[in-house]
């Protein structure tokens, strides 16, 4: 049943709305800058962004789906957002950058969790994992019920990031 809700949210476009809202709510507050949803982005399995963090999601309402929430982008874009949060710019793809991207993804997953709870999907969140420079992501070949959005953060260099959610029946 729960996975059917995810599929319905995906086809109706409401999942995209939820993800966009979650991204704005989290990033605007954290960065103190306007966040614009530029449009839908690709699911990242075949062509993941250079830096990407994923949070696994477990259906706790007994319906049965597995899912992930992700945040990804080019390193310079990720570094610009991390710099605002940390007060200093990470040096390349160092631990500071990875920590910031993991934590941002965790926060975004929490926001998406809240939106999905409003339509009856109860989810538990796992620990975020950062993946560097992957050519592809093997997180479940059939994580096809999902959506992603590309957002632009109103910082001086206008960084763009992708945020998404995808699920499969378990």
């Amino acid at each position, binding site marked *: 049943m729960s996975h059917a809700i995810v599929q319905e949210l995906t086809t109706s476009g409401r999942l995209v709305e939820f993800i966009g809202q979650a991204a704005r709510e989290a990033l605007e507050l954290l960065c103190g800058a306007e966040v614009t949803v530029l449009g839908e982005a690709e699911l990242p399995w075949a062509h993941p962004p250079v830096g990407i963090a994923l949070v696994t999601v477990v259906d706790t309402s007994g319906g049965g789906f597995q899912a992930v929430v992700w945040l990804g982008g080019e390193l310079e874009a990720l570094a610009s957002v991390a710099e605002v949060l940390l007060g200093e710019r990470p040096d390349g793809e160092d631990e500071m950058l990875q920590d910031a991207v993991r934590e941002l993804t965790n926060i975004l997953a929490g926001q998406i969790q809240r939106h999905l709870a409003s339509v009856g999907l109860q989810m538990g*969140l796992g620990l975020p994992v950062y993946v560097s420079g992957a050519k592809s992501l093997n997180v479940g070949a059939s994580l096809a019920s999902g959506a992603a959005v590309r957002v632009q953060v109103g910082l001086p260099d206008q960084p763009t990031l992708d945020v998404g959610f995808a699920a499969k029946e378990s």
Partner: protein
Amino acid sequence: MLKVLIADDSKMMRVMHVRSLRQVGYEVEATEANNGEEALAAFEPGKFDLVIVDWNMPGMDGVEFVRAAREKEQGTGKRTPILMITSQSTEEQMLKAKEAGVDNLLTKPVTPEALGAALEMLLARA
């Protein structure tokens, strides 16, 4: 001087919590812990004015830490205010945190003002 124990596996969040507390006017002496085990090793009844703890951490998580910290306090007559700041936001999860001994729970992201208001209430009750 506010003596605060901050347990979060994210260095960024620990930095942000200290910065937020300073922004709303507190002088802060922070002890940082990367997970529940480190936090429990640092925690002693009456040693801190406040504990800020995340829920999702590798190893001992925030709820397990809070249960263990409250056990440490039993019989001492002391109760340190514990504020959980977490991404977990369902009612069931909030209830579980409160049952473990969390005094207040805020959902990330948290503004300095929201943190200050929550802290003011907690310290007034302490």
